[in-house]
């Protein structure tokens, strides 16, 4: 077990292509960090640099206080779980689990003990003598995790380990990874492009975009106070509504609609305003609201998503099933629930008064 320090790390490929830009992350001992971002954002590259599979162009990576830039992957005291499992196809499950230990000259009795323990923990005892090809995707992923566990490394590195599984299995494996990590208390870095996976697993999220960190924070912090329009639209499903708007004193103008903010306007002039679908509700008779034209509905069972326009900008609202809907209606929102971003840079404008981040579970759309 160890802390991991990622210090001003960059990755520059031959030809000057910069995939990761001076990234700083400090990971506490035992913490579960999720790197999340769209494909090509450098999250896997970053993970592979920590693993030692990719050379670190600039900066340094410390694992347990030791700089490992020039250390071979095997010597870094890490274990990695790959997207396509990367099990050795010609070895039985047992041999797969043992291989790393054997190469380290672990005594036989020790190997047997650790393999048995990991197999019990992952409930793969009865498959130990099978070849990976005779296992289902979920079982293979367990074996891949077992291979990491038996090593008792200082850190686990997960590279999109669940993306090859079907949706249902993914949810249950997600729970299992979380449970396992809690139980072992091993520092973990987990890479995914799935924001839901990121939200549910992480102690802290690192949102990456274009090789740069957009935001680091606890899942709810990132959800309720996204640092940029990118984070706002990436984390949460449905994505946060982002609209062009203008602030005139204390009044927000979105297209033809205006909202009085009651003292919550953090700036003035042109801004991007963000609002979560679930923070919108149908306005009461005399209440102010955004003029909304309904386009279509998506039924999710527990609620429905209402897609439509405000002026010429699209807006999605989540509504309980019992709300009466009209083709044209006004949608109200608590001004404290609005997010303001600088129009040009997409950076968050700090609220005049801190937005209270009432804990609210991430909405799950599956």
């Amino acid at each position: 077990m160890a802390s991991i320090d990622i210090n001003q790390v960059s990755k520059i490929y031959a030809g000057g292509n910069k995939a990761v830009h001076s990234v700083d992350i400090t990971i506490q001992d035992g913490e579960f960090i999720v790197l999340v971002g769209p494909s090509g954002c450098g999250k896997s590259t970053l993970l592979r640099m920590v693993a030692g599979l990719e050379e670190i162009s600039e900066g340094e990576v410390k694992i347990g206080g030791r700089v490992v830039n020039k250390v071979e992957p095997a010597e870094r005291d890490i274990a990695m779980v790959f997207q396509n499992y990367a099990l050795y196809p010609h070895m039985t499950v047992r041999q797969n689990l043992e291989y790393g230990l054997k190469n380290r000259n672990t005594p036989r009795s020790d190997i047997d003990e650790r393999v048995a323990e990991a197999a019990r923990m992952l409930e793969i005892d009865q498959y130990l003598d099978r070849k990976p090809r005779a296992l289902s995707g979920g079982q293979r992923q367990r074996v891949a995790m077992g291979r990491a566990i038996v090593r008792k490394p200082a850190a686990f590195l997960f590279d999109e380990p669940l993306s090859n599984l079907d949706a249902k299995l993914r949810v249950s494996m997600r729970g299992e990874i979380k449970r396992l990590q809690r139980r072992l208390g091993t520092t973990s870095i987990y890479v995914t492009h799935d924001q839901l996976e990121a939200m549910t697993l992480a102690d802290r999220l690192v949102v990456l975009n274009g090789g740069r960190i957009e935001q680091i924070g606890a899942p709810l912090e990132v959800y309720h106070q996204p640092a940029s329009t990118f984070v706002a639209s990436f984390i949460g499903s449905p994505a946060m509504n982002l609209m062009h708007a203008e602030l005139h004193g204390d009044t927000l103008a979105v297209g033809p609609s205006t909202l009085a903010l009651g003292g919550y306007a953090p700036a003035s002039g042109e801004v991007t305003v963000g609002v979560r679908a679930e923070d919108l509700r149908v306005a009461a008779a005399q209440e102010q609201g955004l003029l909304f034209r309904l386009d279509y509905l998506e039924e999710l069972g527990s609620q429905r998503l209402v897609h439509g326009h405000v002026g010429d900008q699209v807006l999605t609202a989540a509504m309980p099933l019992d709300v009466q809907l009209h083709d044209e209606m006004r949608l109200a929102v608590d001004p404290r629930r609005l997010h303001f971003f600088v129009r040009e840079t997409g950076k968050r404008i700090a609220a005049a008064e801190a937005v209270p981040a009432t804990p609210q579970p991430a909405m799950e759309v599956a």
Partner: protein
Amino acid sequence: MQKNKLTDHLVLILGSLFLMVPVVVAFMTSTHAAADIHSNGLSLTWGGNFVETYEKVLTREGGFTGQVTGSRMVMNSFILGIGFALGKIVLSMLAAYAIVYFRMRFATLAFWVIFTTLLLPLEVRIMPSYQVMSELGLLNTYTGLIVPLLASATGTFYFRQFFKSVPDELLEAARIDGAGPIKFFIDVLVPLSRTMIAAIFIIMFVYGWNQYLWPMLMTTDERFFTLMRGIKQILQVWIGSQIPDYNEAFALAVLAMLPPVLIVVIFQSWFIKGLTESDK
């Protein structure tokens, strides 16, 4: 549908007859006495001389020096065939490993240079090769017979393609598991290439077994004669009005055919897997 099946079978039967009959004729003829063959030509019936002819072929000390027996030639052919096949596999696997997994300058160039030698058959470089071997004093040795033929563009190419299809994650997993380059090669790549190795082994064994020109140049000492040379030798012994030993030539030809056939039959399923399946 029924009719189709019938013609299908007919075509297949005709095809196999076309391939089988010459072999059967050779075998049947080999069981007749030489004089018999000389007067009656080829034959499709059992001649009854089977034991005598084959015993003679395998044990009689023939040739000019009287030092070489049929079994000795079979052994030589095996040494050539197996040494040739194994050597080629080892060499081309190592070459392909270097080309695919090591970041060398000129790796691609090296590959293409090897690849273009596919276009040059042995015959083109046979004189220089002979010269080199002769200056190294390797004429009339097994080393001289085998080593110059070992570099194999075909094998290197096949293994390169195979290694390229092995997922990178496997290498990365092995690196994290603490396996160095040699361990990775032996513990992971070689077992994964099993079917490929079998396929190449068959192709190369048959190729080596059937070598004629090179052994003829390299060996003057009859102790190193291979079956392919032996067959020729029998028909060349042409003294006075003596009838050539047709029966022995046929017997030797049948013997020469057996090992490759056996190897193909034994390794058949692997062979097909190796060439068609990418089992990872």
